[in-house]
């Protein structure tokens, strides 16, 4: 890449860079939380999307409402690699507090736009720094000083548009779709963008990374995982939601509330065909879900780490008393409060065995916004078919960041409410016993409270019970019920979504990933291939593991399980399930709270492979 001259306001060389990279770059924007930078960043992201170039945006934000540093990373990649990367090509430094570190992190050949007034560190000459007087540029546009603070970020939108070659027209359209209804705000923001653009055209050379029109995003949508999950629940026929606010899950419940209010009212009376309650805490939230589900509603809750911990007693109850429930865990970094606004896959073990006693639960691992939508529906079917809690293990990265997807498909199948006996069916069957394994799959039949049939009623309890739901402390009965529950868990292997496998012929090395890690996987495999290492890949979609997972492990000499936690939790689950294949399992672990990137995976896999050679 060409080294560019160090340039300052007014004396920049306007000549174009010699080596230019097209549609493959990272833009990093450092601002202050609460300064209105969200609109600015979303405008850039959307404009690039509208130019037909694949793009993703990740918000790295503090646990704070206003005043602390926040970063937004936009990745543009026409091959569709949209995971986070560790390095950036263009930096916008608007936050004096972090500017020195932000700028120091930029490598050779990069371009930094820095707000005038921010002191500059000493820098090597192969980094370009443009000092832009954002404040001075916005002053004539917005006389009101308070309002100015919210508009000033639009200056960098204009500057970046020039540097990267983003169409001014698309910027304008993106701005319009966001602020369309607020005419005054739209005018001000538009003027600020133009001021930035004009300034940059006059003073700054284009960056060595550029964006060119493509048609790779035609028809696609941009959506957050939590919004997608809410849509899934909406079309899955959710009737009851109970939740307690906690980042990063609140936006799921709030999106759902918005959709329900709008689309789930009786057209005649305006009455709701749902109820959503903000509970007093997560124990109450899950309790309400169990009560509603027991009484026949499709009920769900959404939470994150601390809230999930609070739910555990009831989750064990639901396992033992066999009550369906859908629980979304939008994972964040723990333990305890941890880093509440950073992403993680650290709740796997505590979810898989949530609650005391012998319990094991069904987990789903959405790996895309599309999965969030699909599991938003399927989790209900699965929970009702299996009569047990289904825990959907999303995370902050997937839940709160936008990504690209094909528009979601309308469900063609009706819902599946599992083995429910109506009064008419009770008339036909000779006997009804709530906890009898009639079909040999470990799944009993249930009735719904309110049914009039004299044989319908049963007693639900978390204490020892027999097939007829009667209280018992009999050791044999207890063990028999527990064995049946284990059988039911076996059934879940095939009812839950199976893995997606991409097998490379002759590859000895397998990679296994799940959830939001999937974004970095394609890219990592491509780079490994460039380095001469062919790999097969398995995208895990559920626990308990489908038989194909075992077959995959058995077909590889080594399998690197890539996960975003310290303790190799998924590897532990795999080892437990397939002890004979445990020696083949290696781990790639990432747990700094930032979304995993491809390079981290590549480096650790290659390191592992080198060790392998040494060991041999």
């Amino acid at each position: 890449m060409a080294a560019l001259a160090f340039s300052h306001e007014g004396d920049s060389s306007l000549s174009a860079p010699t080596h230019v990279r097209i549609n493959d770059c990272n833009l990093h924007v450092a601002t202050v939380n609460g300064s209105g930078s969200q609109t600015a960043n979303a405008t850039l992201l959307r404009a690039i999307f509208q130019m037909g170039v694949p793009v993703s945006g990740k918000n790295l934000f503090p646990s704070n409402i206003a005043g602390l540093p926040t970063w937004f990373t936009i990745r543009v990649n026409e091959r569709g690699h949209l995971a986070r990367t560790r390095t950036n090509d263009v930096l916008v430094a608007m936050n004096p507090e972090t500017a020195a570190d932000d700028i120091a992190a930029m490598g050779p050949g990069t371009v930094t736009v820095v707000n005038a007034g921010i002191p500059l560190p000493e820098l090597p000459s192969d980094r370009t720094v443009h000092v832009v007087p954002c404040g001075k540029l916005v002053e004539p546009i917005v006389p009101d000083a308070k309002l100015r603070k919210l508009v000033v970020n639009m200056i960098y939108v204009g500057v970046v548009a020039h540097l990267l070659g983003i169409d001014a027209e698309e910027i304008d359209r993106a701005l319009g779709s966001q602020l369309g209804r607020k005419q005054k705000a739209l005018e001000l923001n538009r003027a600020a963008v133009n001021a930035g653009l004009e300034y940059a055209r006059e003073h700054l050379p284009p960056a060595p990374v550029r964006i060119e029109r493509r048609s790779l995003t035609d028809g696609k949508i941009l959506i957050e995982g939590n919004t997608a999950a809410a849509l899934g629940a909406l079309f899955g026929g959710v009737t009851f939601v109970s939740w307690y606010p906690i980042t990063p899950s609140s936006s799921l419940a709030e999106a759902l509330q918005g959709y329900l209010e709008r689309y789930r009212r009786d057209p005649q009376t305006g009455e709701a065909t749902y109820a959503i309650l903000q509970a007093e805490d997560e124990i109450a939230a899950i309790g309400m879900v169990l009560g509603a589900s027991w009484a026949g509603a499709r009920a769900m809750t959404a939470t994150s780490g601390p809230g999930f911990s609070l739910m555990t007693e009831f989750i064990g109850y639901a396992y033992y008393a066999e009550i369906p429930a859908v629980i979304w865990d939008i994972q964040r970094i723990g333990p305890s409060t941890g880093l509440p606004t950073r992403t993680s896959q650290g709740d796997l073990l505590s979810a898989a065995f949530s609650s005391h006693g012998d319990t094991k639960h069904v987990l789903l691992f959405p790996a895309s916004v599309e999965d969030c939508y699909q599991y938003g529906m399927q989790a209900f079917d699965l929970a009702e078919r299996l009569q047990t809690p289904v825990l959907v293990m999303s995370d902050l990265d997937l839940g709160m960041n936008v990504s690209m997807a094909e528009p979601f498909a309308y469900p063609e199948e009706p819902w599946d409410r599992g083995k429910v006996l109506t009064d008419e069916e009770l008339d036909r069957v000779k006997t009804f016993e709530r906890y009898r394994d009639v079909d040999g799959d470990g799944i009993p039949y249930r009735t719904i409270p309110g049914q009039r049939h004299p044989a319908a009623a049963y007693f639900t309890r978390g204490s020892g019970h027999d097939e007829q739901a009667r209280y018992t402390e009999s050791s044999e009965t207890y063990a028999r019920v527990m064995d049946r529950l284990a059988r039911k868990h076996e059934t879940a292997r095939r009812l839950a979504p199976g893995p997606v496998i991409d097998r490379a012929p002759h590859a000895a090395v397998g990679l296994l990933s799940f959830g939001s890690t999937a974004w970095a996987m394609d890219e990592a495999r491509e780079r490994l291939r460039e380095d001469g290492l062919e790999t097969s890949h398995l995208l895990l979609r559920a626990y308990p593991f489908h038989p194909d997972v075992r077959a995959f492990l058995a077909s590889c000499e080594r399998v690197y399980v890539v996960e975003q936690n310290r303790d190799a939790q998924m590897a532990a689950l795999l080892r437990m399930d397939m002890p004979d294949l445990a020696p083949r399992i290696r781990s790639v672990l990432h747990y700094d709270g930032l979304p995993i990137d491809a390079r981290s995976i590549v480096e650790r896999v290659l390191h592992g492979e080198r060790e392998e050679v040494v060991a041999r």
Partner: protein
Amino acid sequence: MSTPANKTPSAAPAANRVGLTLADYKGARSTLCPGCGHDAITNSIINAAFELGLEPHRLAKLSGIGCSSKTPAYFMRRSFAFNAVHGRMPSIATGVHIANRDLQLLGISGDGDTASIGIGQFTHLIRRNVPVVYLIENNGVYGLTKGQFSATADFGTKAKVGRTNELMPIDLCALAIELGCGFVARSFSGDPKQLRPLLKAALAHRGTSVVDILSPCVTFNNHEGSTKSYDHVKEHDAPLHDVTFIPPHEPITADYEPGEVRQVTLFDGSRVTLKKLEADYDPHDGMAAMVTLRRAREAGTFVTGLLYVNAQKPAFDREVGMVEAPLASLPLDRVRPPRRVLEEIMEAHRSGAAPR
């Protein structure tokens, strides 16, 4: 139900208005200690439900954990039941009601279950005014874990092993009134004549109704020096009034002197008459109720009867705005929006017009 022709009417057990006999309201044999106050309450529930002619399938029994919370197994065997975890029955009740607003909910709890581990859920149940009859079988101790003091243990009461309670009790009735509960009563397991009409009235109320029932634990809290022993409660019971329950459309038959009774009309048209004992007591006056409870505590007595009632309190359902039919009964086409809705939402996310 008509009387079978081959039996003389006198031989057949009496049937109530829905054709069920008293036996139909019973449950499994109790496994509590013989003489436990909770069993007497169970008996009053059976009789009240029989006399009211409740349909078993329209009622769900809910409870937490404790000796008291076991009792739903001992009555109304033809009703569904949910014996939950310790202190969390209110959240179950809230969910059940939302799923099926046609179900009448009878919640059974203990003083440990309600006043300690469950006090948060108890207060929020009342705050939301979820329609549940919430009974506290109050013995001042944790029976099931063998006699530790609960948070309703009176100041100065002695434990069986000799410790004295140095903490002030939580008065669950005062708390309920403070929280705006629309039906608050206190009674005694040993006074079925008062308890039964109060239970019926509670069942006729539309929102949360709280009935705190003193219910001696014969095994761990029935000794000399305990303020919740049978003898002590009997001696210090200070009924506010004689309570009579009159179902809707039934005339009041008793003759009363003018000024001798107060009448309360409940949501479903049933009435409660309160015959004055020592002093006149107006259960519509929440302030007076608080003063009465406070005075009783200072005097070391238990005021029993209908402490507070507000039959007009807005219902929980109105706030939630649910459709008339139980949510659990809605078919797929009423809960899955049509294809064009998804298309509309997808278009918004394609163009960027979706609200962020």
